[in-house]
C-alpha cells in the first residue's frame, strides 16, 4: 500500500457523490496503460463498495484502501483506494474480456 517505489496516478474525487468518483476513475483509466497503478481519493462512503466492484466488473486488480485523516482544520478526511489496471483499459477488447465470466 505505501510502497514508495510504485508510481501512482491520483484521481481526486473528494467531495463528489456516487456515481461520480467511479466515473472520474473510469475516464482516467481510459487514458492509462495496462499495469498502471491508480489511486482514487474519495469522501463518498459508497466508493468503499463501488471502487472494488468496478475493478471486478472491468478486470482491474483492487489493491486496497487506506483512510487519511484531515490534515488541516475545516478539511474532512478521505479514503484512498488503490488499484492496478488490467488488460487494455477503455478498449472494446478489454470490455469484452471483463464481461466474460
Amino acid at each position, binding site marked *: 500500500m505505501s510502497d514508495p517505489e510504485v508510481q501512482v496516478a491520483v484521481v481526486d474525487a473528494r467531495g463528489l*457523490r*456516487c*456515481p*461520480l468518483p*467511479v*466515473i472520474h476513475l*473510469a*475516464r482516467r483509466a*481510459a487514458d492509462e496503460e495496462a499495469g498502471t497503478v491508480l489511486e482514487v481519493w474519495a469522501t*463518498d*462512503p*459508497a466508493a*468503499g*463498495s*463501488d471502487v*472494488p*466492484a*468496478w475493478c*471486478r*466488473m472491468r478486470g482491474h486488480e483492487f489493491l486496497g484502501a487506506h483512510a487519511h485523516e484531515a490534515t488541516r482544520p475545516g478539511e474532512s478526511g478521505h479514503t484512498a483506494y488503490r488499484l492496478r489496471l488490467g488488460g487494455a483499459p*477503455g478498449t472494446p477488447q478489454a470490455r469484452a474480456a471483463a464481461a466474460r465470466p
Partner: protein
Amino acid sequence: MASTAADRAVLDAASGPLHPVARETLLAALDAGWADPRRLHHEGRTARRLLDRAREVLATGLAVRPDELAFAPDGAAAVRLAVEGGRYAGRRRGARVVASAVEHSSVLAPARHAAAVTGDPNLFAEVPVDRLGRVDLDAWFAAVAVPGTVVAALQHANGEVGTLQPLDPAARACHAAGVPLVVDAQASLGRVPPPTSFDVLAGDARSWGGPGGLGVVVVPGRTRWSLPGPADPDRALAGPTGHVPWVPLALAAAEAWQQTAATREQDAAEASALVDDLRLAAAAVPDCEVVGDPVHRLPHVLTLSALYADGEALVRRLDRLGIAVASGSACTASTLEPSHVLAAMGALTHGNIRVTVPLADVSPDRARDVARLAAVLPEVVAAVRAELKAERL
C-alpha cells in the same frame, strides 16, 4: 385500491398496499373490533374474541400453537424483540450475538450499539456473506460455537436482493452449540412456504398483504426466551412480547394471510416468471448487474445495479414514467450511506434499483407493469448515463 392511480405501475410492494379483501375486513373491523380487548363489556369481549380468532389463523398458518404467537408494533420491532428476548433469556451464560452481515438494521444496529457501549467488540459477531448474499456457513459455524454466544439471527430471505439463506445447516450448528436461532421472515412470509428451522420467528404483516403497523413473533414453547420487565398478568392476551395490537389490524392481517396462503403457489410461480423477464431485460442493458442468488431466491424480488448511473436519477425518471421502484443507492437514502446489504455482497451500490412485485390480488396488472419497466429500462439507464456524460466508458 383507491390509493393508487390505475395507470401507475407500483413495483415496490415491500410496504404494501393492503390486500383488497383485507382492506374490506379492516373497514368492517373498525366498527366490530375497535374496543379494548381487556374490557369486560360486550364490545370488549367481542374485540377479544376477534383477536383470538386472528391469532389462531396466523398460528395455524405458521404451524404453531396460538399461545406461541405474539404481536409487535411492526416487523422491525418484531425482529428486534426476537433477538432481545433470546439475549435476555441467556444473560447468565453471556451476551454475545451472532448475525449475518445482511440482516435488517433492526438486528445489526442494536447489536453493534450494545457491543460499542460495553466496549467489548466480541459481544457482536457479524458473519460475512458471499457475492450472492448467502451467509458464509463455515464462518457461521465458527461464530455460533464461541462460548458466551446467547443468540444468533439469520434471515429467511433478504428483502433487498431476494436471496434465501441456508437455514437448515445454520440452525443445526446453532442447536449443536445450544444457541437459539432467530429467523427474520419479514420479507418472505406469504410469498414462499414459512420456514420451519427456527427457535424464534419474526415477521411483518405487510409481506403477506396485511396492514402496516403489525409484526408477529413466534416463540415455540421449547425456546428459552423472555423480555426484561414484569410479565403481563393476562398472558393469554399479551403473549410473550406483551404487545396487544389494535384489533382491526390483527383481523386484517389474518384475512390477508388466508387470502394469500390460498393463492401462494400460483402467485409465486407467476411472480418468478415476471422477475425472470426483468432479468432478461437487465441483461440487455450494458454494464448492468443483477444482484442476488438467481436460483435460491424469493419469487418476487429483483435488484440490479447499472454502472455509471445514479440511483436517485433512475428512481425519479422511472417515477415520471409512472413506475415506482425502490433503490439501495446512497443518494436515495436519508443517511447518504449505500445499502449495507449491497456493500456486504461486494455489489455495485450506485445505479441501483429494486423491484418488489406485488401480489396479483393486490395488483392485477402486475404483468403489464413489469413489461412496462422491462421496455423502458434500457432507455432510462442510457438517459441517466448521458446526463452524467458517462455513455462510453
